[in-house]
């Protein structure tokens, strides 16, 4: 599948399909159901300095063509992640992207410093846009200035790995945020994280989620994600990783045609654990049918 082989920020990928953070656990959860060696990369569940308990239940609910989640970034913490989760990924031939977050700039810096020296980690993805934690997260994506601060602070301590910043769609205009990432040394941006939404249980007359609001994902957000990928693509020169509602090779192709250099598949992993590999197979067949030697030839083709 040479048509799909690619280099992202200097890192070789066998294909541009990456399992999105928060939907693929620490990777091994899916081992029984799919060939992890075929997936381009895995972005693991967002890691923080300390173990995080997450939000009270209920944490998820289905909505029309989508789902809301308010997991609250439950994770084992960076130390346990390196000791207990990462070694199991050693034998798997795929790129490991570690999504990380903090409640303060200092926490971001601390986690980044630690991860920067972990051999098995290929790239870092900064989560500045989780809508489900009360402190931090969202506030860093409240203004391009706040975002610049945290990105440049992390950039200073990340010396060995490419840095991706995952953008929030919960802003009036995503373009200045993408620009802030590029200006402060990010190597790539991923767009988009979930959109803030809500659902109400009419029998109980209360919000379905204990957190009241949650992040909307799934096919419902795909048109918004595509529009934002296009806007970011037109704004920055660094690669854009498209994410939001991808559930088939066709969806992935739409993102590439809108400017994505790689794509992440999230919620669709829940419906079909093999979807990442089916997507790369489908993309390959599509390119073959279209007589296109390499997918990079069509990046942004629909919006140029």
């Amino acid at each position, binding site marked *: 599948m040479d048509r799909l082989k690619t280099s992202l920020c200097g890192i070789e990928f066998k294909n541009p399909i990456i399992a999105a953070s928060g939907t693929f656990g620490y990777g091994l959860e899916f081992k029984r159901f799919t060939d992890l060696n075929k997936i381009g990369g895995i972005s693991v569940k967002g890691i923080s300095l300390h173990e995080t308990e997450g939000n009270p239940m209920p944490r*998820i609910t289905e909505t029309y*063509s989508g789902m809301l989640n308010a997991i609250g970034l439950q994770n084992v913490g960076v130390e346990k992640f390196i000791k207990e989760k990462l070694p199991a990924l050693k034998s798997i031939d795929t790129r490991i992207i570690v999504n990380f977050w903090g409640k303060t700039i200092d926490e971001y810096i601390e986690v980044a410093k630690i991860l920067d020296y972990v051999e098995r980690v290929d790239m870092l993805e900064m989560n500045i846009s989780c809508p489900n934690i009360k402190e931090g997260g969202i506030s860093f994506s409240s203004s391009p200035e706040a975002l610049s601060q945290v990105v440049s602070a992390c950039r200073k301590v990340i010396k060995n790995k490419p840095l991706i910043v995952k953008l929030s769609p919960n802003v009036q205009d995503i373009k200045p945020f993408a620009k802030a990432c590029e200006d402060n040394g990010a190597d790539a941006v991923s767009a988009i994280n979930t959109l803030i939404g809500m659902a109400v249980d009419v029998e109980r007359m209360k919000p379905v989620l204990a957190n009241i609001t949650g992040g909307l994902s799934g096919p419902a957000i795909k048109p918004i994600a595509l529009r934002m990928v296009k806007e970011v693509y037109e704004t920055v020169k660094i690669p854009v990783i498209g994410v939001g509602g991808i559930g088939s090779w066709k969806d992935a192709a739409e993102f590439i045609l809108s400017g994505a250099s790689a794509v992440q598949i999230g919620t669709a992993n829940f419906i079909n654990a093999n979807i990442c590999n089916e997507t790369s197979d489908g993309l390959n067949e599509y390119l073959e049918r279209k007589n296109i030697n390499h997918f990079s030839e069509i990046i942004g083709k629909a919006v140029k």
Partner: protein
Amino acid sequence: MKATVVKNTRISDKFGYLELKCPEIAKEKNAGRFFMISPHSDSVYITDTLLKRPFAICDITSEETFTCLYMITGRGTKILSEALPGNNFLVTGPIGNFFRFEKDTSVALIAGGIGLAPMINSARKLREMGIKVTLYYGGRSKSDILMYDFLQTICDELFITTDDGSLGIHGNVLVPLKENIQNYKKIYACGPNRMLQAVTDLCSQNNIPIDVSLDEQMGCGVGACLGCIITINENNEKVKKRCCVEGPIFDGTKVDWDSLIR
């Protein structure tokens, strides 16, 4: 992975069961495990009811087929209830832990409502192991009691209860269970959380161990999404467990019921 509908049998306007062909799931030897199924057949790419739904493996009917008991409660189960023979569905499974039955012990199975599903497979397993099959099965009224004649053939002793007294004993499963609880070395239960909590209380009072099978809203069914967390009291600490892969069966006396009953 796919499962093909062999037969869709409607029991009433609210209940029915699918016979599905999927050797990977039908080969399951233990009772109490479950699988996830997409409510839409895979003939068209429909994303409306997006997520897979968890269902207990109800009865293994051949080397390749098993059944899935459904109760129509929302859009997903409504669509699933209209499945036709030959339809293919995306499935994941078998998933989760299972009931660990021990030879030569006197046990009772407790089912409430749709919680009957894993108990059918459990009854088969107990009989296979030569253990007397006792089932307490409660519902709101007569129309909620499913497959009565069939249950008589797979159980040695069957206690039916209905809240309104329209069939069997008047009241909930606790009414007959209270009388006999001392006869059992272990209880296995599946049903609404309030019932499970009440049965657990009764077991605790009598120092009888109990395993409960819990139902929680699930996203992935593989332990990745962390959407189905159950809080368990372990060594004076509250520990978060994933219902899908660390459950669905838990020691009832350790479940933090307050966090489950909302």
